[in-house]
């Protein structure tokens, strides 16, 4: 979905607040929230694609206001409610107030019916597709052309897997783009590599 989570190449952000040896957690609740979602994944309550998409479905203002672990907590709690493990009412009663969750899940889609096997060196285009559900194609490569570097082991197709739709495994390709093609005259020259699912690609 074309939402605020898809940050690659977005402008208006300031300096990275970088420190050497920066902490992973700032508070005990962050570690606990992380542990809880890991528990839920292990128990098979949801898979990683459902989890990522649940975070993407957060209300955009909340997504941007929340830190990483609050986003994790929100996606995790939303899925627990959607999967019938708990109710929102119970969570809000226990929390003593509003427990923001996410916008509802929409329909997913299956792997592309016809997919091309690419060889290293092949020029490929990322299809000009607008996917309203989960998609792992960052918007900055949509419609752009790159070169296949190698093929990775197959993964479940996330656009299906995040939506409870039957997901076939398919390869991802390491595709090399030029930053100057992605953002002409408005990027530092560099190679940008993305792992692109086969369903997102077409031959040039």
């Amino acid at each position: 979905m074309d939402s605020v989570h898809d940050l690659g190449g977005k402008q208006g952000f300031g300096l990275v607040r970088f420190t050497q040896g920066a902490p992973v957690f700032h508070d005990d609740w962050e570690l606990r929230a992380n542990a809880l979602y890991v528990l839920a994944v292990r128990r098979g309550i949801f898979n990683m694609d459902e989890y990522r998409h649940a975070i993407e479905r957060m209300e955009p203002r909340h997504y941007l206001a929340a830190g990483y672990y609050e986003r994790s907590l929100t996606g995790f709690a939303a899925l627990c409610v959607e999967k019938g493990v708990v109710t929102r009412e119970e969570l809000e009663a226990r929390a003593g107030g509003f427990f923001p969750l996410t916008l509802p899940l929409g329909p997913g889609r299956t792997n592309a019916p016809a997919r091309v096997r690419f060889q290293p060196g092949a020029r490929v285009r990322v299809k000009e597709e607008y996917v309203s559900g989960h998609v792992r194609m960052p918007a900055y490569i949509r419609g752009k052309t790159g070169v296949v570097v190698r093929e990775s082991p197959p993964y479940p197709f996330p656009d299906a897997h995040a939506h409870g739709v039957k997901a076939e495994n398919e390869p991802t390709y390491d595709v090399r783009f030029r930053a100057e093609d992605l953002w002409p005259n408005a990027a530092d020259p560099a190679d940008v590599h993305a792992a692109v699912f086969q369903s997102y690609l077409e031959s040039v």
Partner: protein
Amino acid sequence: MSERHQSPAPVKARVAAIEQALEERGFPVAESIKEFTTLAEEKWIPENGARVVARAWTDQAFKQRLLENGRAAVAELDLAMPVHHRHLVVLENTPTLHNVIVCTQCSCTAFSIIGLPPDWYKDFEYRARVVRQSRTVLREMGLDLAPHIDIKVWDTTADTRYMVLPVQPPHTVGWSEQELAKLVSKESMIGVARL
């Protein structure tokens, strides 16, 4: 407008709420938190990746295996990756090439090898900017790359995971693997520092 939005309950209260709800349904919450704490603090640490790097610096054959199949090679050092990380791609820096890792859509990393991601890696600034303004952002972060060094940015858009293999500092040639491993920081394996 924001003034028409409801304020959430404090985040700690929300974490406690779902903890209690899961506990009441028989989920092993306390054990899971304890186990995760151990993993986070003792297992998923950058010392793992540092051992991999030091081995690669001192053992050419290992380095070749590492570059060909990272997941299999790190297993030689008894390092594991989660099942859904099906591929570890090791990115070799050279005197004229610098690699840097990001996850623009969430904050994926090879956390069992290079350690859990630091705060800035998960922040919007890094996620938004490093793909488009790589040289500028690295410079702002203290890594001012000479113009002849090319940059490759790796966006973690699938469950393939990446780690950077830094260039060995020339003055460390001949050091032991243990000594070398101490040099290798998490930052250098993400690619926001050179050693």
